[in-house]
């Protein structure tokens, strides 16, 4: 699985899963922060992202302490998926 392909898929999946109806995939900067300034996601969205990775890629977050770094941006999510998917 290529990182760029995962990034492309993740952008669409995040929009659909989190009901970001006013956001288009091309408006998401892969390196922009997902929480805080970027897409302005909240704690419930964070839980949805965990479910998204497990449901679509079979990837589980092994150590909760890693979550902040994994969900920093779409790029970091894609890197984690490529490194951990079977």
């Amino acid at each position: 699985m290529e990182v760029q392909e995962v990034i492309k898929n993740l952008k669409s999946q995040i929009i659909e899963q989190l009901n970001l109806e006013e956001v288009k995939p091309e408006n998401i900067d892969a390196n922009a922060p997902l929480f805080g300034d970027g897409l302005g996601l909240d704690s419930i969205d964070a839980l949805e992202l965990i479910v998204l990775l497990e449901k679509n890629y079979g990837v589980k977050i092994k150590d909760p302490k890693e979550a902040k770094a994994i969900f920093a941006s779409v790029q970091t999510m894609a890197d984690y998926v490529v490194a951990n998917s079977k």
Partner: protein
Amino acid sequence: MEAVMLLLFLKRYKLETSITSYCKIKNNTVVVNDKQYFKGTESDELSAFLGALYKQMDLSYPKFFKMDKLCKLGTLATELVIRNNIDLDNVPKNEIALVFSNNSSSLESDRNHANSISDKENYFPSPSVFVYTLPNIVIGEIAIKHKITGENAFFVSGKFDADLMHNYSSILLQNSAISTVICGWVNVDGNSSEAFVYCIKNLNFKQENNVFQKQHNLQQLYSL
């Protein structure tokens, strides 16, 4: 005990209150203070209708799209009540109470959640669906949007209970720092939906600048 005493007091010295604005949403039609504000296409599903109403109101609130139908309906109806209520901007947020009711609780989201966990082979409960499996979340969404910090209550009853709503609002107005109560009946169950949200104040509220001065009977207004 205190509540019982207050109810007895209210029965003897009935507190006079005034509805200062109201919004009704039913059959894809929105009425605000006796005037039709918006009418959707009759064939519109509730989600499509609420999306069209959101655009008509020129709102910019991305969180709206994450809400379940009950919260969307309650949020839009309340927004119209607040927009059409002169003077509400000047009321401290801790003096505004939210008292809502319905008869289907959060059944729509409850069903969605149940469906999402029915297949043991594909078991992925959605946190953003689960979070709406309580009816009083609609009060939370409204309070967050308008930074309202006063009292709140949500009642589930078989039908709109005008006496309950009036008595509870009167107690708040009589016995607390509350000066304004936003009340509502917001119900979603399958294809059936209805919202009746209104703002109520003591009659000693200055009415000369009010856009909606009629002294409606609450049950009559609901049944219009």
